[in-house]
């Protein structure tokens, strides 16, 4: 990457690292929630559904602020995590990953739910008569059949994670080399006198990343569809 400056490489690397972490950590939880929200009816279903979708409608700054309250050094979860596991989220890239995960979570769950709703429950019944228990059925029938949605959700969430700004800057600030991802670097460049060129270059990198992500997701979706014979 001869044509990128060290700080650009750093921001790009950080963005990718934050997005990967965010997707890896939220993926299992999103699958679980998609399944619970699609297949289970219980008291509080509507409330849980609303909670999952909340980041879509809240200003990102509010999400960042709530995260600060909960996961800050004096917040109930943050202080517990630090005491028990020694994990510090505030002002770290893991914190940035948490903020992006929360923001992109609704997109992920939504994609998975659509795909799960299309899974023929008759196939699960068939598996059941063939001797497959609940976890077995989920692993061998439900999950493979909702895989297009899981992939679509992961890729959408990954792309969104690359671009998350408000919640990240509010929760973990803008620290070079630790939390200054591409959009934060771009914002910083715009705030710096004479930073126009740097901003344009960062914008180009973001553009290429976004386009690449979309093309990749389309290619994946096609492969999976062919595999499922549709």
């Amino acid at each position, binding site marked *: 990457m001869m044509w990128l400056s060290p700080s650009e490489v750093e921001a790009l690397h950080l963005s990718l690292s934050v997005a990967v972490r965010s997707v890896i950590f939220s993926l299992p939880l999103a699958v679980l929630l998609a399944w619970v929200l699609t297949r289970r009816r219980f008291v509080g279903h509507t409330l849980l559904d609303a909670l999952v979708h909340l980041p879509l409608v809240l200003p990102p700054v509010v999400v960042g602020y709530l995260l600060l309250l909960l996961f800050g050094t004096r917040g109930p979860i943050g202080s517990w995590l630090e005491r028990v596991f020694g994990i510090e989220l505030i002002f770290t890239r893991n914190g940035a990953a948490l903020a992006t995960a929360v923001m992109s979570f609704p997109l992920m769950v939504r994609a998975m739910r659509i795909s799960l709703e299309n899974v*023929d429950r*008759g*196939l699960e*019944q*068939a*598996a*059941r*008569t*063939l*001797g*497959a*228990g609940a976890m*077995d059925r989920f692993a*061998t*029938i439900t999950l*493979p*059949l909702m895989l297009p949605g899981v992939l679509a959700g992961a890729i959408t969430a990954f792309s969104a994670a690359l671009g998350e700004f408000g919640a990240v800057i509010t929760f973990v600030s803008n620290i070079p080399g630790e939390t200054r991802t591409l959009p934060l670097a771009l914002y910083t460049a715009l705030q710096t006198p004479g930073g126009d060129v740097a901003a344009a270059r960062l914008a180009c990198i973001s553009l290429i990343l976004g386009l690449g992500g979309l093309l990749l997701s389309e290619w994946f979706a096609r492969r999976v569809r062919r*595999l*499922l*014979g*549709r």
Partner: protein
Amino acid sequence: MFSVAVRRRLGSFLLDAQFELPTPGVMALFGRSGCGKSTLVNIIAGLLSADAGRVALNENVLLDTDRRVYVPPESRRIGYVFQDARLFPHMSVAANLKYGQRRAPAHRFVNLDTVAGLLDLGPLMDRRTHQLSGGERQRVAMGRALLSQPALLLLDEPLASLDAARREEVLPYLESLRDQLAIPMVYVSHDFDEVLRLATHVVLMESGRTIAQGGVGEMSLNAGLRSIVGADALGATVDGRVLGTDPSSGLIRVQVGHGELNLQTAPHAVGTKLRVHLLARDLIVATEAPRNLSVRNILTGTVTTVSSDDADSDLVVIDVGRTLIMARITKAATRELALEPGRTVWALVKAVSLRSHSFVAPAAISTAPPGA
């Protein structure tokens, strides 16, 4: 013995069904669409719960609401062939077949080779399920269910989604399953021809209730059948035994009761059991021994019952030697011939209007109808 007595309310529909099937045997659940056959089968499989009732296969109690016994479907060892096959689209045919086999108990009675041979699945193994025809899908679904080593096989209208040609293609496979594997089967159908061809026992269902049950021969004369199959499909199903081939006509001679029928069919070995359908509308009744006729088949017997079928016609049941056949004739004919129980008659039927199917499984044993 497979015994079922269950009750379930679904909205305004009430399922109240009970039957017993001696094992092994093929029980046909027969009735019009929407009479509750699929609901009943789903309760047997455990996919649907019952409000009250008991399901037991030999000494294994699968459901007993009184004693709070409920064995989940995955532990019932009941194979289920669905109307829409329900093959797993993300697996090859071979993987579909092995799905149940891998989860089956250690004691196995069929292996992949046997099943592949019986159902002719060899050439399909590496295919994806969406590349299969309708008939092939059903064959794979049957194989998959069998390989899970079930103690009972449920088939919910496996041929209903196929056209007539495909149906003819799959039926022989079902016959070979019945004849070569000693596994009890419950076969749901609204096509009486299929039932006659495959079943040893019939349970008649009407609006959620089991209204009659018994061996196929006995049930083919049941009055409750009339409203379901219609007058034209009504007739006796009798068990016959091949005596040989008539050299002059090439027709196959089959013993029925203490008489003999000649019919057009593929050559069969002497002694083969054949199931012969004698449609009531095809039978002609005479009160004297007929002569100089083109009709090949004349059975002598005694009238056992005469009952009114509709405004114009009567159903006459004739005992031709521990075998009952049924003729549908006009009321005027009944009057003129003075047909009444005890009267000796000759029943005539043309060889070309007889249909037969080979049947190797144990002949129909009649079940005691539990008051249903």
